[in-house]
């Protein structure tokens, strides 16, 4: 694990690298990939971050409305991120919904074939 490069060389008690703030940045690898894809697409100027953000707001807003009466409901932020990424790439015509579905099924089959 890389150490954070602080000026003093002492371990920091205050602000620190993400892992040592007591929480992982990404709980699961797929979350990190979904995050990286959005930023990479915007860096490449394939998409606009604002286009993604509007979809994220819509996805989150829908959840907020549907769960207003159930405060104990579990909120999965990165599912909204992924849903918004998927909407972004399909609505911009980069990918088709059915090819994403087919590829997901293929990967699922391959995973299970490899484990036999």
């Amino acid at each position, binding site marked *: 694990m890389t150490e954070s490069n602080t000026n*003093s060389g002492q371990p920091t008690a205050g602000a620190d690298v993400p892992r040592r703030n007591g*929480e992982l940045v990404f709980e699961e690898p797929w979350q*990190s990939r979904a995050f990286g*894809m959005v930023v990479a697409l915007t860096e490449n100027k394939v998409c606009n971050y*604002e286009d993604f953000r509007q979809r994220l707001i819509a996805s989150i807003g829908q959840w907020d409305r549907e769960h207003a009466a159930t405060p104990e409901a579990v909120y999965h*932020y990165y599912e909204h991120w992924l849903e918004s990424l998927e909407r972004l790439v399909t609505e911009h015509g980069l990918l088709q919904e059915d090819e994403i579905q087919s590829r997901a099924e293929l990967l699922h089959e391959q995973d299970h074939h490899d484990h036999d």
Partner: protein
Amino acid sequence: MSHDYSDDHGNAALRTRAIESLLIEKGYLTTAAIDRLVSAYENDIGPMLGARVVAHAWVDPEFKRRLLADGTKAMRELDVGGFSGENLVVVENGPTLHNVVVCTLCSCYPWSVLGLPPTWYKSPEYRARVVREPRAVLKEFGLDLPPEKQVRVWDSSAEIRYLVLPERPPGTEQMPEAALAELVTRESMIGTGVPQLP
């Protein structure tokens, strides 16, 4: 059209892999670009950057003035920030004013200077409550503000990302800048906390 991933993270993982593999095949992205970004946010970009900015503002009043006038531009002097399109506004705490930041609609946050936001910042509870009842929320974070201190809540957006410049703790007048930076917590730069005492 929406897919319910909540019962099956395996499904989310499959769809993510599917999207990634397709986007790479079609030339929109490379694996290396995604890897680089993930690594940057897991290792290099985090609140220690903001802490350096805060400490510098504490020791250098002219820098603080520039920081408050144009956050994005001033931070560049320290090689911090500057992600394209990111407009950073620094809001200063004082004896009669405490600032706290939220993004009520999603999760807008000053990534380039604080890294990615913590889970609680993105939670529906924080997003809704801190605007409605900031003092109660801050109290739950362990910050019990006196009534004479005004609380101001800043709702972030794509256009403006806020960073709180917390008050310098007492008894730190002789401390070097690097040591001051170590007192600055992530929460103090969001507004749900204050810096540590020396």
